[in-house]
């Protein structure tokens, strides 16, 4: 089962930094176990371009499609047996502590 994991900021991060896990350890461990297919950090939302085509015309907007305080700053594609495994992988990611993660399953199984 594949899950897209959106990595987002959050207005109420964990204050005790000693509890936040290390990202290098997370990436290395999940890559080695075959649970992380790919992933990356994204440039700031100010670098985003939103694209629509209406009536054959390409319409471009500067910025992300939704202006919110919490923004997507990265993503990972996970391969997990089920949601419980994906939750365990997500909970060990530093941004689960300092931000928030959204697990979205692929629609095809």
């Amino acid at each position, binding site marked *: 089962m594949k899950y897209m994991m959106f990595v987002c900021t959050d207005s109420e991060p964990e204050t005790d930094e000693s509890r936040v896990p290390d990202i290098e350890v997370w990436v290395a461990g999940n890559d080695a176990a075959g649970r992380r297919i790919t992933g990356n950090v994204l440039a700031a939302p100010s670098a985003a371009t939103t694209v629509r085509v209406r009536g054959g015309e390409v319409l471009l907007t500067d910025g992300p499609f939704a202006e919110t305080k919490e923004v997507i700053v990265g993503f990972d594609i996970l391969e997990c047996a*089920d*949601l419980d495994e994906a939750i365990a992988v997500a909970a060990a990611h530093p941004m689960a502590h300092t931000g928030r993660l959204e697990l979205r*399953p692929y629609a095809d199984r």
Partner: protein
Amino acid sequence: MTEDVGAAVEAGWDSYARIVASLIRVTGDWNLAEDCAQEAMAAALERWPRDGVPGNPGGWLRTVARNRAIDVLRRAAVEKTKLREVAMLWDPSRPPAEEIDDDRLRLIFTCCHPALSLEARVALTLRTIAGVPTADIARAFLTSEPTMTRRITRAKSKIAAARIPYRVPAADALAERLPGVLAVLYLLFTRGYDADGEPAFAAEAIRLARLLSALMPAEPEVPSLLALFLLQHSRRDARRDAAGDLVTLPKQDRSRWDRAAIAEGLEILLHTPVEGPYAVQARIAACHATARTFADTDWSSIAGWYDQLARIQPSPIVALNRAVAHGYANGPDAGLLLLAEARADGALDNYPAAIAVEADLVARAGDRPRAAELFRAAAAVAPAEVERRALLARAAELA
């Protein structure tokens, strides 16, 4: 319908969860599992009064449900291996008892998965495990049937789409997940026990706690929760007068308490260690259940248990009840002091029970006009009509 048939159909509901749970495991199809279990129940209701109750009612229900599932799957041209698996279900030549028990536990843990909203968990548990009609669930949660249907359908879709596993969590995760399951049962029970609740839900919660207790005997909080339910539920007939109005604990006719339920609850507590909040709450309920009269209540023990509960599971409601207990054990002034502490963070603002507690303490401290005023203020913010009437009656007594 004869009484025998009625009892057999009632006992058949115990088979319902087994049938649904095993069919979900093998087919992965929640709707199919429910439909087939319901059709088996309907067939029993139709045939047993006419043809007599079969020698093994549970086996009869399982066979009807399984055959129905095979029919549906065959028509849907499901692959042969799955059909064979369904056909092998409940094969009397194999000893399947443990496997079936595991299926029901799997079902409970999946329905109560924390990735589902709490409302969805409660609704799904009622619908899938207890077989309660969606219309009844909707009524109890003050919403329309289509809304409740959508909520349940969405929960089932999420289980499939996000692949919420159909299994009991492994040992380390179990400790983390069990409280969530017990919270669903507790909410279900209070939904049945509340002033404007659906009384049948309290009985359903007891049935589920009994099942979970039998399936997980090594987890002390599970039998503790069952004992808590039994002890509270023992007062159900004494809690309402002939007009349907609430009767407060001091005024209840204790001869109407269910002695068998109390005995069962106390027996469970005898051999269950105090390990968590339900164990403590059950002991508080036991103190009430064993007091011959209200005046005989062992308030200093109850106050001690509330001190412990406030340490292991602090909440505004626990703080409020702790104030009540100390108010009886150590006098109204001690109670008012703890009430002020409980209210300090504002969580109990406009909470009718907190105002009623203050009213009661003030009355016992001697200021009757102020107490009557407070009871009227509590009635003004109470959500249920029966509660309002009870509070206004208290105010009238003090005038």
